[in-house]
Structure formats: C-alpha cells, structure tokens
C-alpha cells in the first residue's frame, strides 16, 4: 500500500531524512523507531503529503503523493504528532467536521461518528470542547478523526504518547486489530510497543534506516541474545568460563555464547555442566536479547551529537 523510494528531505542545509526506502503492505503493522529528531515525523509528514519531499517518491495505494495528492490523501488516516485538534470545537462537532471533509454526509456521517466514538471510548465526552479534555481523551479524539473514513492506510505519529498504561494497552490492541485489514505505520520511542503491536520494525537514526526486521530478528542482534543466565548453588565462574565469556550479576551468572548460532547448544552445555558438577539449579534462562540494548547500540543519543 505504501511505497517509499529514496526519500530525502532537506531543511535549509540540514538533511532531516536521507534516502529512506521501505514498503508497507496491507495486513502489516510497521513500527517506526528512532531517537528524537531522527526523522520519524518528517518521514510521516511526507507520506501524508504535508511536506513535499526534496527527492525521492512516495506512493500510497498506487497514487503518487506529490502528483495526485487528493487520491492519496483519501486513502490515509493520519494522527499527527501531539494529536493537534481544534480546541474550541466539541468532540462531536470535530468528528463531524472530519467526516464531512472525507465526503461523508447525512446518515453515513452520523454512523461514522458513532462508530469511532465507540472504538475510541469517547462516549462520555462527546459534548465537551476539546480544550477541556485530558491528554488521553484529546489523543483518542484525534485518533478517532484518523479512523473516521475507515482508511486503508493509517499513519500514526506517536499514538500512545501521553496515555496512561491502561490506555496505552488499549491503543496497542486497537493498532494490532486494525493492522489485520490495513497498512499501518506508527512511530514510537517506546520499545515494548514494538513487541506489543508490530509485525515489523524499522529503526531510523539521523535520517537513515539503520536496522529493520521482525521484533525477534531485531532482538537477535542484541549482544545478550542467546546468552544463558544461571542461578545455582555451587556454581563457580571458573567452571563456566570454559563455555564462554561469563559475567556475574547479583548472585547469578550470565554466560555469553562464543558464536551467535549456538544458543541452544550453549543451554544444553550449561545444563550438562550443572548436572556433572552437582549444582542445585535455582533458575536458568536463555536470553532473547533486549530491544533497548539493540536500539542504544545502533542509534546515537542526541546528547553526544556534535
């Protein structure tokens, strides 16, 4: 549904997005990760046609966003960063406005408004003006606006920003649900969301894609991936060191594999060693790797940038 080829965006002399290419098909939920200022929002603004690209091409459902913007925009539902919406409108009138702008009128409009009010749990605030709403409700109102025309493509810029843990959970479930029938791209810097909602993740740093893959593939890039953590009475560092590099962390030992491929073999070897030495196993865990460690390793924090 979304095809992005060599997308570039310059602001003056600064290059915000530098040659980004990826596709999103129907039925996929793609998480767009990156530190602040890495070009996530800029890329999303180019997908939705708000920023014209400096170079490269975006097509949505076969329509070039620059050449036939109206056709492309009709297919997209967009939640902008910070969920901007008109503060002096009531939730209901705002959603009606969005529905009418999407070409829905009369009964179809009322149905669409009622549907998104249900999906986004807004029924208790429909008559309130948006500036009186809490951040969570504001966010869901703007999300409702993005869903009003049941779009094929959803572009969500930090959809869970500012929500409490329950609301975050709801929104993630909603995204996963929507992803079955639509092409969804959402940006976040909360890594657990990648596991919770994405079928694929793209990590972007300083305008370039630095890694992409399924959450499991990304986790496997971690140093920790395949390591075995062991807590056992009688265990010693010296004995374990034969199997690989050993690290001691609060009472347990972590053994790193010598090569990445042999994690199952390493677990077996640790279990056999424990049996041979007569250690009493209290805990044994094969590490999957941690996304935040991968994230930190492949992106540069903005605090050390020149």
């Amino acid at each position, binding site marked *: 549904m979304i095809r992005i080829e060599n997308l570039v*965006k310059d602001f*003056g002399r600064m290059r915000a997005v530098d040659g980004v290419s990826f596709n999103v098909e129907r039925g996929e939920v793609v998480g767009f990760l990156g530190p602040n200022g890495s070009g996530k929002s800029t890329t999303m603004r180019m997908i939705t046609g708000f*920023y*014209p690209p*400096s170079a490269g091409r975006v097509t949505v459902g076969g329509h070039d966003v620059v050449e036939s913007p109206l056709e492309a925009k009709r297919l997209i539902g967009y939640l902008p960063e910070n969920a901007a919406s*008109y503060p002096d409108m009531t939730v209901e009138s705002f959603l009606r*406005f969005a529905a009418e*702008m999407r*070409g829905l009128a009369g009964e179809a409009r009322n149905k669409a408004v009622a549907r998104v009010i249900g999906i986004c749990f807004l029924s208790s605030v429909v008559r309130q003006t948006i500036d009186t709403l809490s951040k969570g409700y504001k966010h869901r109102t703007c999300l409702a606006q993005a869903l009003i025309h049941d779009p094929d493509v959803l572009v969500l810029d930090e959809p869970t920003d500012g929500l409490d843990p329950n609301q975050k959970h709801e929104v993630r479930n909603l995204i996963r649900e929507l992803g079955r029938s639509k092409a969804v791209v959402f940006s976040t810097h909360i890594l657990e969301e990648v596991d919770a909602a994405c079928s694929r993740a793209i990590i972007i740093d300083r305008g370039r894609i630095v890694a992409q893959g399924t959450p499991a593939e990304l986790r496997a890039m971690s140093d920790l991936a395949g390591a075995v953590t062991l807590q056992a009475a009688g265990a010693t560092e010296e004995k374990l060191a034969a199997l690989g590099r050993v690290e001691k962390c609060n009472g347990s030992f972590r053994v790193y594999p010598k090569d990445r491929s042999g994690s199952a073999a390493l677990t077996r070897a640790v279990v056999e060693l424990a049996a041979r030495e007569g250690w009493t196993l209290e805990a044994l865990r094969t590490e999957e790797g941690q996304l935040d460690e991968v994230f930190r390793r492949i992106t540069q924090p903005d605090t050390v940038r020149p």
Partner: protein
Amino acid sequence: MRAIQIIAGRELAGYFASPVAYVFLVIFLLLTGFFTFTAGAFFERGEASLAAFFGWHPWLYLVLVPAVGMRLWSEERRAGTIELLLTLPVTAWQAILGKFLASWLFLALALVLTFPVVLTVNVLGEPDNGAIFAGYLGSLMLAGAYLAVTCMTSAMTRNQVVAFILSVVICLFLILAGFNPVTDLLVRWASPAVVDTVAAFSVITHFDGFQRGVLDSRNVLFFLSVIGFALFATGVILRGHRAG
C-alpha cells in the same frame, strides 16, 4: 466547492463558539455609531446621505479587520492543526479560500447589522439608496482587501500579535499611498510615474468611487486583485513553510 463550504462553516462556527464574534460585533457597532453620529457630524451635515458613515470605514477597518483575520493561519500553525487540515483530501487553495470566505462572511454580517443607520437616514430624508448600496458594496470590498492582507500576514507567523501588527502596517500603507504627505515624500526621489503607480495602490481613491454611488468596474477589479494577490501570496507562504 463542498470542501470550501465545510471549511468555511467550521471557521465561522469557530467565531461564534468563542467570545471573539460577540466582542467584535458590539465594538464594531459602537464605533460605527460613534464615528457616524459624533465624529462624523451626521445630523449637523443636514444631508440625506451616509457619507459620514462610510467615510470612516477605511480607518475603522484598519484596526478591526486584522483583529478578525489575525488568527486564521497563525493559530493553525501554532496549534499544529494546519497539519491535520492540509493532510485532509483538500487542496491548499480550498483551505485558503474557505477560511477567507468565512471571515469575509462574518464581516459582511457585521456590516448588515449596521442597517439602523440606513433606516435612520430614510426616515429623516430621501437619500439615494442606490448610492448607499454602492457604499455598502465598496465597504465590503475594502474589508475583503484588508482581510486578504491579514490572511497573508497570518500565514507568515505563528504569533497572532505579529500578524496583527504587520497587517495594520500594510493596510496603513494601502491607505496612505494616495495621501498627499506620502506622495510629497516620494516625489523627492522618485519619478512621477513611480509616484502615480504607488498612489494607484491606495484603497481610498478606489473606495471613494463607491461612496459617490459609482459602480466602476475598475474599482471592483482593484479590490478583487488585491484580494487575489494576497491570497495567492498566502498560498506561496504556506507552501514555503512546508518545502523547507
């Protein structure tokens, strides 16, 4: 067309959802009343015309029209809703026109509410109602021109106050361009052709035609071209922000 209507409808409803509309209408009517009857010496003139009423409009609008239009784009940019608006399936032109028309309609409503002054002059004498109609049309054109300029300055900045001040300055120029003190200043270093060109930009000369009851297509064209140019500039400025 439909999109323009929806955008205009939302914008117009926005005026009445906040105190802006009521405050503006009350102040506008109070000021037109004051200028017409007190400063304009409506009764002392002893003539059945609305010259005392329309004569003040260029100066009254100088402050009031930028106040109505200053938020049009600067507020969208400050609140970030411009991103929402321009990613809906509308062209920038539809959005610009919709917003402009909403504010213009609001100013037209304010003008319509001055009808008691027309009744008064008709009770007291036998005015040329054709001239009064032309005067109203000219006044609406003038308001539209100021408003389009305010649209443009509003697109330049996120700050409504800056938009207001810029707009007042440009509109003041549009008034003063034909004023003698200004033309005298220009004559010192510019050729007469330049001075005449600058003077031709003055809204006063074009507005005077309407006040006299003359519907001259050149005057209509002048105001429509100011509106057209300012709205075109609005589009260019908005695109400039996004192009980076």
